[in-house]
């Protein structure tokens, strides 16, 4: 954009403090996206703090099939467990599992992408063919296979998904690194005599972080839905533990008699996914303005 170059040859942002800069950036983010970010942060805070203010989700707290009341905000289920407590714990699990998958994907994929992009040549070919192999595996099927082999548990489901998730990050990071590596500042750094490690981690990697954060924030929503789906078909923690997908599946029988039992976890997934999606869009806007 020629205009930018012309109007700001000097010190864009130099005389602003961090708060002002933040404020100026936030102005580029739409209202819906801001709501998304706020809701997501709120949900995160509530569900992380869940153990502090709700009852243990796996004990029976009263009679079964109670409709929502002041005492049990979302009623009780078929064995008398408090649904509000279970939904809170369920969101917490969803969140943490999604974050765990993304974190592992960023670390593994990021490292492989970085090395492949920075080294190029046969190292690049080898690492990328390996990545392609994993890309070819269908995610849910692999998760089922892992669960079948190691037993159905939340941990195994997360491992199953993580195995197919990192290749996307590897490709993304490699692409970014490749385009950065062709820029003059990398040649200049080489001539400055910096070590290979420093070149990769100081002169290349930071440039790939913004797109990774944007992708990660949009991925949360997909993961929340994927995990809920797998747990719905029985691939997740076994029965009593609170998981949104499993709860909805178990309550599906009583949809017409006690609709709150399946609807509460269903709506929780829905809200979580929408909020995460909006927040992801917001974060993308933040970085695109960049």
């Amino acid at each position, binding site marked *: 954009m020629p205009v930018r170059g012309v109007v700001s040859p000097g010190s*864009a942002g130099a005389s602003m403090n961090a708060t002002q800069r933040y404020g100026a950036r936030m102005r580029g983010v739409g209202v819906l996206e801001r709501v998304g970010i706020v809701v997501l942060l709120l949900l995160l805070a509530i569900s992380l703090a869940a153990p502090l203010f709700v009852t243990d989700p796996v004990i029976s707290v009263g009679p079964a099939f109670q409709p929502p009341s002041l005492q049990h905000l979302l009623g009780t289920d078929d064995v008398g467990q408090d649904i509000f407590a279970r939904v809170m714990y369920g969101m917490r699990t969803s969140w943490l599992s999604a974050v765990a998958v993304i974190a592992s994907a960023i670390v593994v994929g990021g490292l492989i992408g970085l090395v492949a992009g920075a080294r190029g040549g046969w190292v690049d070919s080898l690492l990328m063919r390996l990545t392609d192999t994993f890309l070819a595996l269908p995610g849910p099927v692999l998760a089922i296979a892992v669960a079948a082999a190691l037993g159905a548990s939340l941990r195994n489901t997360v491992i199953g998904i993580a195995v197919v998730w990192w290749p996307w990050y590897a490709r993304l990071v490699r692409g970014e690194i490749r385009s950065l590596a062709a820029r003059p500042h990398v040649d200049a750094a080489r001539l*400055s*005599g910096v070590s290979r490690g420093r070149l990769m981690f100081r*002169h290349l990697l930071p440039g790939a972080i913004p797109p990774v954060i944007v992708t990660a924030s949009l991925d949360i929503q997909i993961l929340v839905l994927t995990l809920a789906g797998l747990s719905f078909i029985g691939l997740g923690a076994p029965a009593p533990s609170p998981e949104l997908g499993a709860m909805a599946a178990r309550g599906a029988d009583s949809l017409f008699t006690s609709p709150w039992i399946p609807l509460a976890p269903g709506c929780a997934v829905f809200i979580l996914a929408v909020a995460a999606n909006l927040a992801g869009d917001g974060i993308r806007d933040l970085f695109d303005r960049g």
Partner: protein
Amino acid sequence: MTFSRDGRDLHALRGVDLRIAAGEIVGLVGESGSGKTVLGLSMLGLLPKSARVEGVVTVDGVDITRASEPMRRKLRRSALGAVFQDPMTSLDPTMRIGRQVHEVAGSTAEVLRLLAAVGIPGGQRRLRDFPHELSGGLRQRVMLAIALAGKPKLVIADEPTTALDVTVQAQVLTLFRRMRDEHGCAILLVTHDLAVASTVADRICVLYGGLVAEVGQVRPVLDHPGHPYTAALMTSRIRLQADRRHQLPVIAGEPVQPSTDPAGCNFAPRCPAATPLCVEKRPLLTVVPAQGGLAACHYHAGEDVARGLSRVAGLWGPSVPTAGDGGVTVRRLSVRFPGRRGLRRSEPFDALREVDLDVNRGESIAVVGESGSGKTTLLRVIAGLQAPTSGSVVLGGAGRMPQMVFQDAGSSFTPWLTVGQHLYERVAHLPMATQGERVSEVLNRLGLPAEVARARVQQLSGGQRQRAALARAVIEPPDLLLCDEPISALDASLAATVLNLLGRLRRELGFGMIFVSHDLAAARLVADRIIVMTGGRIVEEGPPDNVVDHPSNPYTQALLASVPQVSTCR
């Protein structure tokens, strides 16, 4: 006009009056940040939404900055044409050029007529070419054909020749004049290069810090500049006839920050003739008696300043190339870029063909040629950034890595690291205590304030970027400094500053230098020896004055003929 960005106001233009008459060519000259591109865009009604416009830009009787979008479109279609710096990015890469011109021209006959008019040979056949199949000069001609297709009253050309080779530049500039004569359209030629403006324009308008510094007929203005800034641009421009023994006269200081709004003359902080009145009161455009143009200076001190600047420009000490250790020896060096097979087929390309070159310790060599001549590849091989296909490069001395100054100083810094971090990287092998000393020493040597070390490169002005890049290169004095077109994108006064700096540093620190440029005038000033390259071969070699005054090779003669010159009576 004021821009609002990140919550702050940036004054791009601060009250500019300019009238372009029908059929007139106006050269709009200014350094980067002077507001010249913004002025061009505002005439096209292409300003971003964040721009706050005061005043009017009237095109054909309509204020285009406030007109509705359909109205603007109509104006652009009927009255305006535009040519931008980089024709590759302004043409649609997926569309054949025939269709792109046809979109505006309306009929194939008209397309052919236009292509012929802008000097594209081979008419009919060319219609089916894609932009990437054309050379830079031809692409710019296509842009011009599109701009002319709507029979515009005004064509706005923003740095149309900056990305082109000098010989092509000369042809395109001639074309502009012919288009005006044949079509009668007015042209606003936006450029940082005074010489380019003076070769084609009828009138010249010099912008400084968002204000018109001077405006008037080309010849009188350049002969008797009324504004000190115009005078500084004139005296510091790099001429083929310049005295090699003297430093170039330059004006010190940084351009006015767009975030500030000085009450007085915005050139006052840099002006050698400034008085307290200049700081308090902003001068208005008044008639300069000597030439009849208008200049915004209380004293019309241009000519005094010019004389003063030339007087203070110092003499160079001797440049002493010594045979022996520390130079570089290049033998039978060839680089071939292999072609591609398959869908995106391309032929192999010989960038260098058996080049021999010796650079003595402390010697300064200028390598002159156009794009594709192999000059940049030669630099990259010597720097170790490109492997040769055959031949050898032997670096003498202690085997210290040569350092390089890139064409765009800003892009040679990693954007998220501070300038200081880049400097420390270069001296990382020294003990901690010495590192800090070396950094402050080199900043001092290049006249940079200490704060620069804490800034990222985007926060620096163009001049500071150049200095920072040089600081990084010489913080550990190299045996050899490689310069890749370091001044080709700079305005006259900044280019002269950089050449002076290079000359001073090389005499102080005793390093050898290979200076790659397309500009024979600059090469003549910095070099002890000039080498002319074309097609990957060295075609001429010799002392600067011999090469410039008595070129033996026809290619050198062609290069010399196309160097744009400011033609004055003096």
